[in-house]
């Protein structure tokens, strides 16, 4: 009887901890209201431009890429998308996971994969968390910045995906932001971390 009760409590605690981890977003500021003038990334002059910043090793970003693929299935005509892979200039030997994410991103039709050495572009767009998505219109005004998954590493409908669709279809979304779930992006050598709120930040 006691063993059974202890087992039930242990299982309940385990699942509660797992769900809390999945549901806790990382702290993330909004992207700049205008496309940064000093950005080297290409902005489309006749369509909206979407950027998804990714840590190449982050497993949660796999779900973000799946959601991006779903988005592009319907919206490829209306948006030019890029996955910005943020990595150090010299990739550490321990970074063995990066190729898979890059290949996954490259396989999405209409998506270009760009390398961001030391997170310089990420810093310009205030991106601090892997899976952070920013959407700008053809004139360079921000339409949306945030995440596109419902919880950490979980595929499915999300506020972010709905708001991006609304913005692309010309409807005014209720908000232009949403929680981001992912690992912290790679630091530059000088220790600068692109615009992250460290309170509540979690990998």
């Amino acid at each position, binding site marked *: 009887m006691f063993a059974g009760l202890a087992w039930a409590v242990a299982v309940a605690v385990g*699942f509660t901890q797992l769900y809390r981890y999945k549901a806790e977003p990382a702290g993330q500021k909004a992207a700049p209201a205008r496309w940064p003038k000093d950005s080297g990334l290409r902005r489309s002059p006749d369509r909206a431009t979407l950027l998804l910043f990714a840590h190449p090793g982050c*497993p949660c970003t*796999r*779900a973000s890429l799946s959601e991006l693929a779903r988005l592009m299935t319907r919206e490829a005509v209306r948006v030019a998308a890029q996955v910005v892979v943020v990595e150090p200039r010299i990739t550490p030997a321990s970074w063995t996971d990066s190729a898979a994410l890059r290949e996954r991103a490259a396989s999405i039709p209409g998506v270009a994969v760009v390398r961001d050495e030391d997170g310089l572009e990420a810093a310009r767009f205030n991106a601090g968390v*892997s899976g952070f998505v920013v959407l700008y219109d053809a004139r360079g005004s921000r339409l949306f910045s945030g995440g596109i998954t419902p919880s950490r590493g979980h*595929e499915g409908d999300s506020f972010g995906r709905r708001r991006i669709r609304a913005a692309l279809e010309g409807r005014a979304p209720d908000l232009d932001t949403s929680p981001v779930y992912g690992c912290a992006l790679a*630091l530059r050598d000088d220790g600068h971390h692109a615009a992250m709120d460290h309170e509540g930040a979690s990998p």
Partner: protein
Amino acid sequence: MTNMATETAVQRIVQRAEARYQANHHALLAETDRLFAWLLAGQWVFGIAVALFLSPHAWEGRARTVHVHVWAAVLLGGALSGLPIALAILRPGWVVTRHVIAASQMLWSALLIHLSGGRIETHFHVFGSLGILAGYRDWRVLGTATSMVVADHLIRGLLWPESVYGIVNPEWWRFLEHAFWVVFAVSFLVVLSVRSLREMRALAERGAELEALSESEWRTSSVLDREPEPVRAAAV
């Protein structure tokens, strides 16, 4: 045979049939417990493999740590499988064993869904598990399994709805839609389980009758063997 002797013989057959049925039923339950012990052990290994393959590390910039999913697979998965496996080995056929197994199997569905990042395909584990649990031919076990699914959906639907339904802002009754499909599958499994037990009982009765018949024939032939041959009158 007198009426009393007939009644006694019938009662003996009924008792024998019940004993055969109980023995066969217990053997079935114990065997199913052992099957699940292997399945739960295999799921634990599989869960760890999924976590290591899909999400081995979490990253904080350049530094990496072991991902929470790996810990969940090892520790939570170990807890989920540990008690049911121990019960299956130490108390096979016990009613508590199969209910703990049923609860654990459905919680494994929830864990695997999370480890796989919410893939729709992993949800098939729920319905596959219900089918395997029907091997107990005990509708109460299916009731336990169904209750676990409903409770999980209800609780998570209130606290983290996106993790359950794949949509934001689900209606309050959404969990009923998921529960309906589980109840749909379980209803037919219950009917088939009850039918299967009825057949087991009928087989036990037939077996008992055959046993009684064969015993009776053996007794008769033994008597005949012991009696001397009747003397034939010499032909005149």
